[in-house]
């Protein structure tokens, strides 16, 4: 006879974290602790924190690289670095910030927050979540391992052929980059899959698609974008590696190949990726700002639609990175127009944030300052983007510091500021303690002023003709004093980042204790303890509006959300699966326990890429076999997951 349940009428109960039932839940969901627990956990909160910490470590490394470069450029004729060293530094700076910081840090927020925002007990695929972290970590180490050997990537983060072809760059540098990016692509893809299926399946009962927080829309959009964009860059890097190591001719113009194919594939990926690393950050602001303005976001539906349409349009604008390559005027005109249209959804979001502040009663916390500061930087970065979307202007500005200014306003303004604000906002949920507000406000002003002093003059340098990527410049070009200001401003910005890091460490130990809901926020994560218990929610919440914890005040409809009463689901690790649009209860999902399989598979995949890099076919073959066995062990049907009945 089978002891596996096929159907169940689940119990509805009233419970809190102090209830007897919660002790049972805790025993089911708690990891085994110690090093074994650390290596085998599949808890989304642990994985989210790891993502955040690792991404911040990469942010600091990338920042130090920038600091060395700025020292070189502070004066004309700087010779602290050779041109080759400079080339490796600026390439690794770009690779680190764009691939190892900007996306992973947002994955950290989303991994930690998604199940809490959605009223679930974990992500759809907890083990896949662990895998995506390990592969991200190993890909980062893979890319950095070559750095001490002087073999780091050195052709810029977009790595154009023929510079990156073997004839002009024979060392291992570009192969490290190519294979490292394919490896990282695996992490991004499995992470994206997890977010998409989690959204479709794991929302609390009643959380229909028009009630999810905007952060969910942002990460969902980014994930769908990544699903369709990452294969382009993985393929481009794979083809480049084949060209370099096995004599294929994809980018070799002498044998009928097309160097521009590289640029097409790279930017078909690259532009959606830009949106992938800003839309979730914009979601952080759209969810955080209303809490501090004491009112719901103005224009939820337009902002959600703007998020999705930005990404949709983002797949049709890649050629604006290639205006100077001599493509036909009809083609560049189309892409110029498409790029300009993106102003519309962006403006919708900006006006929503401004209206939220305008019509709200702002509370000037550190997090609010970072969110509001972001709006200004977003506008500046948006305007310079609009300028470069115009073909004649771009032909003048491309490959100058104007573009450097634009992309830093976009990436620091739209990613770093919301991320730092987001940490101030959710730190009490992560740790149970508040961050220091006085230091926080000083941090904001130091970062904001330092950033603008450091990066605004780059616009002027670009207009004055200073090219990007030069490792030094001659005297008498008129760039010296502005470069000195840029260097000093960027160092001030770095001091601000340091103040933030100090605040995190001090507050971890001495921060004021936070209750469940220190900011009086409206979404579900604030209904559970700080930090949340391993099972997240004592009962699965039921949701009746967009702002479940503000319902008493907003007088929207007669239905009420319920966070204290709901499905108990206490027979092992379980959570509620719901239907995709309306979030009706659909299935009781059995969730996996902690396991080493993701770590093992991640390690084997990393070894596979090391083998490919070194042409060590035995290592590659062995790693492939281990990957296969780890995957089969992972997927082996289990009675405890109700995958077998007999």
């Amino acid at each position: 006879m089978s002891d596996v349940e096929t159907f169940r009428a689940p119990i509805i109960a009233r419970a809190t974290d102090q209830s007897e039932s919660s002790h049972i839940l805790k025993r089911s969901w708690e990891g085994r602790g110690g090093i074994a627990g650390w290596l085998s956990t599949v808890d989304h909160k642990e994985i989210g924190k790891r993502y955040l910490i690792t991404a911040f470590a990469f942010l600091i490394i990338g920042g130090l690289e920038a600091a060395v470069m700025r020292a070189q450029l502070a004066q004309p004729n700087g010779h602290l670095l050779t041109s080759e060293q400079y080339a490796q530094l600026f390439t690794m700076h770009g690779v680190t910030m764009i691939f190892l910081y900007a996306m992973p840090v947002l994955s950290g927020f989303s991994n930690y927050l998604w199940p809490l925002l959605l009223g679930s007990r974990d992500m759809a695929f907890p083990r896949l979540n662990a895998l995506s972290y390990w592969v991200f970590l190993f890909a980062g180490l893979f890319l950095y391992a070559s750095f001490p050997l002087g073999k780091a990537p050195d052709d810029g983060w977009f790595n154009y052929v023929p510079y990156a072809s073997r004839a002009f760059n024979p060392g291992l540098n570009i192969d490290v980059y190519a294979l490292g990016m394919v490896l990282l692509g695996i992490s991004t893809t499995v992470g994206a899959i997890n977010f998409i299926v989690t959204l479709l399946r794991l929302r609390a009962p009643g959380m229909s698609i028009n009630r999810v927080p905007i952060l969910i829309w942002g990460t969902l959009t980014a994930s769908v974008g990544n699903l369709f964009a990452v294969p382009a860059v993985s393929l481009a890097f794979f083809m480049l590696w084949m060209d370099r190591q096995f004599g294929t001719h994809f980018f070799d113009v002498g044998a009928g190949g097309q160097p521009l194919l590289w640029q097409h594939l790279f930017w078909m990926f690259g532009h959606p990726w830009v949106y992938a690393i800003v839309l979730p950050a914009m979601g952080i602001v759209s969810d955080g700002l209303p809490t501090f303005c004491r009112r719901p976001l103005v224009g939820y539906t337009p902002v959600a639609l703007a998020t999705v349409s930005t990404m949709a349009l983002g797949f049709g604008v890649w050629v604006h990175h290639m205006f100077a390559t001599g493509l036909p005027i009809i083609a560049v005109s189309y892409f110029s127009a498409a790029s300009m249209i993106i102003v519309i959804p962006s403006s919708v979001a900006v006006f929503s944030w401004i209206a939220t502040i305008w019509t709200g009663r702002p509370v000037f916390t550190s997090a609010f300052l970072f969110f509001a500061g972001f709006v200004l930087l977003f506008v500046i970065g948006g305007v310079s983007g609009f300028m470069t979307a115009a073909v004649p202007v771009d032909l003048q500005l491309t490959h100058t510091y104007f573009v450097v200014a634009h992309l830093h306003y976009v990436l620091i303004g739209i990613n770093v500021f919301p991320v730092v604000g987001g940490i101030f906002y959710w730190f009490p949920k992560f740790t149970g303690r508040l961050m220091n507000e006085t230091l926080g406000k000083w941090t904001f002003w130091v970062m904001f002023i330092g950033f603008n002093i450091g990066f605004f003059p780059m616009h002027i340098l670009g207009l004055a003709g200073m090219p990007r990527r030069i490792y030094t410049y001659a005297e008498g070009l008129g760039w010296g004093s502005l470069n000195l200001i840029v260097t000093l401003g960027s160092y001030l910005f770095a001091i601000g980042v340091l103040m933030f890091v100090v605040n995190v460490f001090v507050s971890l130990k001495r921060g004021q204790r936070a209750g469940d809901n220190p900011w009086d926020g409206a979404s579900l994560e604030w209904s559970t303890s700080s930090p949340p218990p391993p099972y997240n929610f004592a009962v699965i919440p039921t949701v009746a509006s967009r702002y479940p914890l503000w319902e008493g005040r907003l007088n929207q409809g007669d239905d009420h959300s319920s966070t204290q009463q709901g499905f108990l689901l206490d027979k092992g690790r379980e959570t509620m699966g719901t239907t995709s649009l309306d979030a009706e209860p659909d299935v009781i999902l059995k969730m996996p326990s902690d396991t080493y399989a993701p770590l093992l598979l991640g390690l084997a995949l990393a070894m596979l890429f090391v083998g490919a890099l070194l042409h060590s076919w035995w290592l590659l073959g062995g790693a492939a076999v281990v990957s296969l066995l780890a995957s089969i062990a992972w997927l082996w049907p289990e009675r405890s997951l109700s995958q077998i009945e007999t």
Partner: protein
Amino acid sequence: MVEVAVSRTTLPVGSKAHHASGWWGMLTVIATEATLFAYLLFSYFYIASHAQGAWPPHGMPKLSLAIPCTILLVAGSFTMWWAERGIDRGSSVQLMIGIALSLLLGLAFMALEGLEWAGEPFHLTSGVYSSLFFTITGFHLAHVTVGLIVLTVLFVWTALGYFDAKRHSAVSIGVLYWHFITIVWLAVFFTFYIAPRL
């Protein structure tokens, strides 16, 4: 804890058919993999459209092996469809026969494709066409290999008696992937063998 009520609706527990998260996961895997092949074929057409001189440069690719290849894979999809129908009715014997037939058809496909590779008058490094040909068909062959491993594992699991009429979502997920491999082949086949003739 206060027990308030027992839900009026009865819900399925765990991985069942389209209730399994893995089913949704496989759909997203197929979406991203299909995009990968779209970018591969984009690369082919992009380079073809810029080609100087004759395209394909070595004359029209012969259909004598490619058409049998296509028939084998399409037949393999039908046998897997039939296999899944078996377990839907609770027959693990029909499932095992279906998987075994599909495995044989898949292996035959790989053998014919190997002959096709060996018979080509060009190598990987001969030119950009040969680079595209071996890389794109190579990507597809790698997917067939993964598909054959999936079928083998499913065969073993069926033999161990893991599946019955109610619970066999692993089979449904594997079948989905196997159909995907067939459909990708149709796109590859069209691109290399039919499109130049149009």
